[in-house]
């Protein structure tokens, strides 16, 4: 307990037998939370490129009316894959990567509680990714059946018509589900059992809190999705009729099962990013987070309400007026916890002493764009108006405005914020600024105009559209190209920082205003940290002797 942090860092530099295994064994057999965290992040980056390429294909096809590049089924196949790759391949693994890296560092634990399971939950992902890619390409082989043209919602009866590619997809979902549930169990066990003894739940870092809530959400919702797709599998091959009206089944049942998973899933994507912002904004405001406890309360409230409002995705299925009223009011109430979180971020910036490094630039723009996306969310919650918005480009614009800033950009911000800790090098600030501005302009150019398209009557998930929608689609496609290309800057930035050429060395506390235990260990963080638990004070900082 009396060992100071510098000693720990110092200590490790001299014990090579504590270091990683050599060669490929280091990664395949890894039990180390930092290595597994890095693998999660690299996997996520690969998937992001794949998902981004599919987004580019979609926007290229939609640039002009008429069928230019893609056959309708291929288009629908790409739309399906874009969503699944981004949600399950890019955002969730990236958040899990941050969790792996940062949670033990932040709570003063030497590693995750269940390191071997940690290895398993990562290595299930490449297997799932291979299955997912197979589901995409198998229809192009002789006897491969038809392509998946259902969108990521996999609604029957359409999903019952699809060929064997759908079975690949169902097993992909199973694998991803197992991986996420295992990772969630690991995170919960770690947080409850491995915190430094002096760290209470109240003074635990907010990022750790968000992941605690997220992990519980995942364990509650993923089995429902797994059950739903398994019923689909039974309908397809074993002659059951869960979702088949001709056999006495109910096609709408699947929608309820899917969205019981699908809506909380949105908060699974958002919450870790809220956690990231809760660290970045105070660090560059040089003052503590405003409303720490209300932040924790808000995220628990958000997760709880979020579990019981799923049917707002299905206002057009003909529910009773009592049911739609309930789902409408429940959904509008989501604005309370979300509003409180955003308010706390803005209040943290109030009477602060802000500096504008790239993570902070991202954080500020995320708060602004998320408020906008949240307000269109309130509009969508209104049942009468949603009868127009439902399944239009307005919905596409809305959820990209919450998920892109709320999840993806916040993860970029988190990566930039903690890269110095991981690599020991400061990233190139000028390049990061370029990345920020190009992606900001590209993103808004792509999605802002889609609100107009939706209101004027363009449905989503269509491969071809009437000529009246040409202008805005063209703008959207051009901006999407800028947005897509901007990520090359990010890729370059990350590689440059890892290699450490042309960058400056990072201090152990890489940002002057940064608080938290992760900044007490050396940069780059040694292979083993917190061999003995630190003692923290009420603010969650190391207790100065």
């Amino acid at each position, binding site marked *: 307990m009396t060992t100071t942090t510098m000693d720990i860092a110092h200590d490790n530099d001299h014990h090579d037998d504590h270091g990683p295994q050599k060669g490929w064994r280091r990664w395949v057999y890894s039990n180390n939370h930092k290595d597994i965290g890095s693998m999660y992040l690299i996997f996520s980056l690969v998937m992001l490129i794949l998902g981004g390429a599919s987004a580019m294909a979609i926007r290229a096809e939609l640039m002009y009316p008429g069928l230019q590049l893609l056959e309708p089924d291929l288009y629908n196949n790409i739309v399906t894959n874009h969503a699944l790759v981004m949600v399950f391949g890019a955002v969730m693994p990236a958040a899990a990567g941050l969790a792996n890296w940062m949670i033990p560092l932040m709570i003063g634990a030497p590693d995750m509680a269940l390191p071997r399971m940690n290895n398993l939950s990562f290595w299930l992902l490449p297997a799932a990714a291979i299955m997912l890619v197979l589901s995409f390409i198998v229809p192009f082989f002789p006897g491969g059946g038809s392509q998946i043209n259902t969108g990521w919602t996999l609604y029957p009866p359409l999903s019952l018509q699809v060929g064997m590619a759908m079975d690949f997809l169902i097993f992909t979902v199973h694998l991803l589900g197992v991986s996420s549930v295992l990772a969630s169990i690991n995170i919960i066990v770690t947080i409850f059992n491995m915190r430094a003894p002096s760290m209470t739940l109240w003074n635990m870092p907010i990022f750790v809190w968000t992941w605690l809530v997220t992990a519980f959400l995942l364990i509650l919702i993923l089995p429902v999705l797994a059950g739903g797709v398994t019923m689909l599998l039974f309908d397809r091959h074993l002659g059951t009729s869960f979702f088949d009206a001709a056999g006495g089944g109910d*096609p709408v049942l699947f929608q309820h099962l899917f969205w019981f998973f699908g809506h909380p899933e949105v908060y699974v994507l958002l919450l870790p990013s809220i956690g990231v912002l809760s660290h970045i904004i105070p660090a560059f405001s040089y003052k503590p987070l405003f409303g720490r406890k209300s932040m924790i309360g808000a995220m628990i409230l958000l997760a709880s309400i979020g579990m019981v409002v799923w049917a707002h995705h299905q206002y*057009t299925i003909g529910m009773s007026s009592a049911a*739609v009223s309930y789902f409408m009011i429940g959904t509008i109430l989501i604005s309370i916890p979300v509003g*409180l979180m955003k308010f*706390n971020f803005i209040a943290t910036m109030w009477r602060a*002493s802000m*500096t504008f490094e790239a993570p902070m630039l991202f954080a500020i723009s995320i708060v*602004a764009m998320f408020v906008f996306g949240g307000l269109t969310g309130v509009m969508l919650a209104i049942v009468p*108006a949603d009868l127009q918005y439902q399944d239009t480009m307005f919905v596409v614009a809305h959820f990209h405005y919450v998920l892109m800033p709320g999840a993806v950009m916040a993860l970029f911000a988190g990566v930039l914020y903690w890269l110095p800790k991981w690599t020991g090098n400061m990233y190139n600030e000028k390049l990061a600024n370029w990345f920020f501005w190009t992606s900001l302009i590209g993103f808004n150019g792509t999605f802002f105009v889609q609100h107009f398209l939706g209101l004027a009557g363009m449905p989503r998930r269509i491969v071809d559209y009437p000529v009246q929608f040409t202008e805005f689609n063209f703008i959207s496609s051009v901006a999407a190209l800028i947005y897509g290309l901007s990520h090359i800057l990010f890729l370059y930035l990350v590689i440059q920082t890892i290699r450490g050429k042309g960058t400056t060395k990072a201090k152990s506390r890489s940002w002057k205003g940064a608080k938290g235990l992760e900044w007490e260990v050396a940069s780059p963080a040694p292979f083993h940290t917190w061999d003995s638990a630190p003692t923290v004070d009420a603010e969650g900082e190391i207790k100065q002797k």
Partner: protein
Amino acid sequence: MKKLATLLGLLLSFSSHAEYGLNFPDPVTDIGQEIYDVHMFTMWIATVALIIVFAIMLFALIKFRKSKGYKADQNFHKTWFGNWAWVLVPVMVLGVDFWIAGRAQSTLDKFWDAPKQNCAHENADAKHCFDMNIKVIGHQWWWEYEFPEHGVDFNGKFYPIKVESRPLEEEDASEGNYLRDVDNVLVIPVDTVIRYLNTSVDVLHAWWLPEFGFKRDAIPGYILETWATVRKEGIFRGQCAELCGTWHAKMPIVVKAVSKDEFKQWIESEKAKLLAELKDANSNKDWSKDELMVKGKKVYDTMCAGCHNVNGQGLGVAFPALKGSPIALGSANQHIDIVLNGKKTMPGWKHLSDVDLSAVITYERNAWGNNASVVKPADIKSAR
């Protein structure tokens, strides 16, 4: 951020008419008008809220920066505001929430439940009744409409008027109504309360006309009700709004709203057409194989393809393939028996005419490479 605010302002100022369509098209139904009003109401509140938040953020960004020498107030979160913001903010948000929800709920109460009774019925509530029904049936990838109250009596049976509305095969993507034209439009009367009954024979679809103000899914096994009174004559265009497979993008809806008199004329001409068809079908005419095949394909694609697939390859385990099936290639009598009386999940089709049945059976026996005997209307008659 500021860009967003200005663009949203632009959206509002162009709200009704603009070249590119920035907002809902002008509604032509009472319900559509209500929905439009709620939409504008919420959007205004959202816009004002957005402007307030952006203004506060902008002020903070300009004022509280280190480069201006501003010192951070380390105790801001411990002031009375910091202690009570967690109550103040939710109360304010809740107030706005209830304002919006109250308005939305009152609109919802006005139209959510479709009328259940025909206005012609003596006990009907005059304020909440319908004048006529239209059944909307989704197919991959076209729409079928049925008028349950309008039709002809023939041989003691009632045949409703049906409209099969298929997309036109136009290819010129620069043309004005590209993807927006059908061969047969749905004709409806104005100033008439019409209840729409949506269903589907294959997968999920959604029937959506932006000018009407709402969309409603078409789900196999369900009948969903909506209702609307169109107040303006004209042609209104929409399209399927629920992903329904390959040609989802090419499933236009065209409705022509006409005066009540014009509608009556249209109904009469449709009735005459239907009657002629029925007479033709029930005459003792000797149908050739080619004629039966053409008619059979039409019946098959409408009635049978939902389960057995357009290409005759069936669907999953429950719906066997007809292509190469021993029944379709075997004895005609067994084939007729199954189609007439059904088997397990397959319903019987006795209600179809002899001509339709002989046509569809002939088609099943000779399409997709099948090659078996032709079945004539007389064979059906004797099998009944």
